[in-house]
């Protein structure tokens, strides 16, 4: 859109990755004179807002400078040799696939920092909280911009420690077990993934993702590809999460503090699906081809399982926790993303990437809202909230109720909002899968996924009915409606959900050429 010289773009991208890390170190040091603020806690929280804000601005400028006419080309790329012995290079760059995820990550982290500035979760000092949040940001941003397999693994692992501590220190009930479950599951997955990455790197002689994608698996035998994809898919599937490797997710979400949940759902899960698109699809297409039907089948099971679990949690008398419910709904939504990827068609993969972003926006918003609800009521238990007829949020806090209803309908995929396009395109992709994949099987998957959308609609509407509607009881104490800072952190998500729903081309125009190129093996 605007013309920025390549070296400035390179600098911006490096700043986006390294900036938060420097910020994290700075957060641990005492505040310099003049920046002391009202109290040390306030100063460090403000520091978090400033750093994440600066990263967001840098990301936006980078987005503006991004050449939208050639989104398939790697832009702002830096390529420095780092570990010669392993041929690991610091290779950074963005294309149409990574740019939206980069922006989403920078935005969500900034909103989380902003939200925490006003509403710090209960726990030890904010100093460590801010430092961990910033390390987490570096890890997630790096995952989306690195173009070297070992570096990708490094970035992938980098988020584990901060997220572990965010859950274990600032979380709610059962936080220790949930944090352990999170880190052990993901680590086991990612160590197996490392073996797959090494296999690819050693057999093809390079760890460079661009070179490998251009090669499109020609340098690898089918058996190597199959083994590598199996290993890599396990690691990515744990992160995504794919049924049956999802069981860490509901616990982690239930125990995590609000911002932890938002980042977990909004950003961390995307790292798994991004890995599928960036590594498995272009680098080992034959291996991916072998596993695509199984991946699609598991994805569909995930869709149905997630929505049935939600349906059961939403029912009266089941003591369903709203956070847990949204976590299960994530399993369903990520199922759509995986289905799109498994179709191995441009339509499906575009849909998957769209659904990725949409899920990040909508589920991020929903976790914010449920967190706010939990703060106000002291519980996220649906039965306690609803009691007899419903929590009557429309009557007691109309704006909060309206936002929750908005989030719910966006999540169920109402046309005109972001959730719709992703699900539709992935199902479209499954309708006509790539050559060589069994069409009848994928048609069945598509039909089942369609059933899943109905179930999704059912449970979300039940939630809206039980939380937002109901008779207003006079004796209950008043609860605050949406506050100023809450508006500030939620409005961008609402606006972007509407924008992406009404103008999908803004995203698809970026992703489509890049996806075409990846699937065609860099020949486009």
């Amino acid at each position, binding site marked *: 859109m605007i013309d920025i010289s390549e070296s400035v773009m390179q600098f911006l991208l490096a700043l986006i990755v390294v900036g938060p890390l420097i910020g994290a170190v700075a957060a641990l040091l005492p505040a310099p004179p003049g920046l002391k603020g009202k109290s040390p806690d306030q100063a460090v929280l403000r520091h978090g807002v400033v750093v994440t804000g600066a990263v967001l601005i840098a990301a936006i400028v980078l987005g503006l400078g991004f050449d939208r006419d050639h989104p398939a080309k790697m832009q702002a790329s830096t390529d420095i040799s780092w570990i010669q012995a392993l041929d690991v290079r610091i290779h950074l760059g963005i294309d149409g696939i990574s740019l939206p995820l980069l922006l989403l990550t920078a935005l969500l982290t900034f909103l989380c920092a902003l939200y925490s500035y006003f509403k710090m979760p209960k726990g030890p000092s904010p100093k460590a909280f801010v430092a961990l949040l910033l390390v987490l940001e570096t890890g997630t941003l790096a995952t989306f911009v690195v173009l070297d397999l070992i570096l990708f693994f*490094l970035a992938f692992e980098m988020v584990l420690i901060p997220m572990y501590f965010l859950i274990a*220190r600032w979380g709610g009930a059962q936080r220790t077990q949930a944090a352990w479950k999170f880190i052990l599951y993901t680590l086991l997955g990612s160590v197996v993934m490392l073996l797959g990455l090494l296999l690819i790197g050693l057999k093809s002689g390079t760890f460079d993702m661009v070179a490998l994608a251009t090669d499109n698996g020609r340098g690898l035998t089918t058996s190597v590809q199959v083994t590598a994809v199996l290993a890599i898919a396990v690691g990515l599937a744990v992160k995504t999460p794919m049924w049956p490797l999802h069981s860490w997710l509901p616990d982690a979400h239930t125990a995590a503090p609000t911002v932890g949940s938002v980042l977990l759902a909004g950003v961390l899960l995307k790292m798994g699906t991004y890995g599928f698109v960036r590594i498995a699809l272009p680098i080992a297409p034959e291996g991916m081809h072998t596993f695509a039907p199984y991946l699609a089948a598991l994805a569909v099971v995930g869709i149905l399982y997630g929505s049935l679990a939600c349906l059961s949690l939403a029912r009266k008398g089941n003591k369903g926790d709203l956070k847990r419910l949204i976590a299960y709904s994530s399993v369903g939504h990520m199922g759509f993303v995986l289905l799109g990827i498994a179709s191995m068609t441009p339509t499906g993969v575009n849909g998957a990437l769209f659904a990725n972003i949409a899920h990040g926006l909508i589920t991020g918003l929903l976790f914010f809202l449920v967190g706010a609800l939990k703060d106000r009521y002291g519980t996220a238990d649906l039965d306690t909230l609803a009691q007899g007829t419903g929590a009557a949020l429309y009557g007691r806090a109309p704006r909060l109720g309206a936002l929750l209803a908005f989030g719910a309908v966006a999540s169920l995929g109402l046309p005109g909002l972001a959730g719709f396009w992703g699900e539709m395109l992935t199902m479209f992709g499954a309708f006509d899968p790539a050559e060589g994949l069994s069409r009848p099987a994928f048609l069945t998957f598509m039909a089942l996924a369609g059933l899943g959308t109905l179930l999704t609609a059912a449970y979300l509407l039940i939630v809206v009915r039980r939380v937002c509607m109901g008779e207003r009881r006079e004796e209950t104490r008043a609860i605050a409606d949406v506050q100023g800072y809450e508006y500030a952190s939620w409005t961008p998500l609402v606006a972007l959900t509407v924008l992406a729903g009404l103008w999908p081309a803004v995203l698809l125009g970026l992703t489509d050429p890049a996806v075409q190129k990846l699937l065609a093996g860099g020949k486009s």
Partner: protein
Amino acid sequence: MTVATEAVTLAAQATPTQTAQATDLVHAAAPAASLVQSVDWLAIAPPVVAAVAALLILVADLFVREGRKHLLGLGAVLGLVVALAALLPLRGAGHRTFCLVGDTTVCSYTADQFALVIQALVLVGALVTALLSLTLAKDDKNLPAGEYWFLLLSSAAGATLLPAARDLATLVVALEVASLPAFALVGLRRGDKRSSEAALKFFLSSVTATAVMLLGVSFVYAATGSLHLTEIATRLDNVPAQLDTLAQAGVALTLVGFAFKTAAAPFHFWVPDTYVGAPLPVAAYLSVTGKAVGFSGLILVTVVAFPSYADVWGPALAVLAALTMTVGNVAALRQNATRAHSAVRLLAWSSVGQAGYLLVPIAAAAYTSDAQIGSTVAYALMYAVVNLGAFAVAALVSRTNPGGRLTDYRGLYARSPLAALALGFFLLCLAGLPPGIIGLVAKVTVFSSAVDAGLAWLAVVMAVNVVIALYYYLRWTALLFRPAPQEAPEQAPATATGETPHPVRAPRRLPAPLGTAIVLTLVAAVALSGYPQLILRFVTGSLFQ
């Protein structure tokens, strides 16, 4: 103990020359043109400097007054620094000495890259140990200062000699020079029952290993007629048929001996008790220098001397690696955090686990080429820096909490933030998780050597082990940042009435040598994380030239 001391003195003085001449006599069929060898003193300077410093300190101990004993420690540190500096001029050029008169390519002492790297590792390990010991010597009056420094330096001299040794006799003697003083170091604390028991255990298991190894070495010598590793390698290929069984038995026994020294799985039982019984710096020394000695010996015999038996020792080492890492990590996992000395015990078991990782590239070398050894060397360097750092922080904590329980580390961040951050970083490096990038990259090289050699099953076993190890390392790390126990102030008066007074916020000030050790290792670990190429350059290409 005096017997051991004398033996060490003799051995430290006489090792290279005597053994080389002994082996020369065997081969000196060539006309005795010049029986007097020219010795490349520069090449053998590092072990010689350490040995001379050891003797000087032993003599000086007789003349130094009680109040000035701490000068001996400074002398030891100085000696080690000089020995390290002696490595510098050796870089690049492949110095070798004590060569056969007839064939000057067959030498007993070779300062190739492998030798130099391991020598540097060993000397740095000894140096950090010495820094930790300076504080210990001041705190613990039961420790005889002169003997302590002498034993430490003699052991370091032997350990420095070993990686450069290229014949089996020198190898065995160097190994013993490194080990014998270590037994004494473990049991040096006067009147400490646990300490002497640990020393005895260590001594008996190690002596058994030596006996087995010597038997193996003599078999190999009988079958091949040579003690030089490169000669053995060529002669093992065409052993006469009737001696074949003898050669095989010799190879197997020699390897069993070295497996003992590396504390590989079935021979690891002495490790935890020895580490716990030994003074903390000695435990650090054993875990780094002791391990490096065992591993370099194992590498030399397998890769240099017995390559023709690779199809035998390759699978055997792979199984041993899998067993060792699993046993070590599972035992570390089962450590009870409230038990006395659980911190050192955990480090001990984890060092057994890490030994398993170190074995992987050696096993892989059997399937591919000896270039894989670089991964072991790189991993050993990473492990040395990080593990010394962890022991340094443990030494700091044990000053205020002599119990050495893992629970004592709770809330360390609140008490001394730098030490807690450093220990957290070291533990994450050991676990191989960012921000401990160097640990992760070192693990990646080990993984890649396994994948490269087609040992997929071993890679998977290692992957599971990495996850197990993460659990206990991270549990410890998490403990550092937990708030300190609240009930402590209430309990303090209650225990104060008992027989042992509560440690009342004992020495707050960080002793300078201890601080130096922590900062030194931390800076090294952080620098390596930023630029792993510093140690990973050993991964590419052969080290034996």
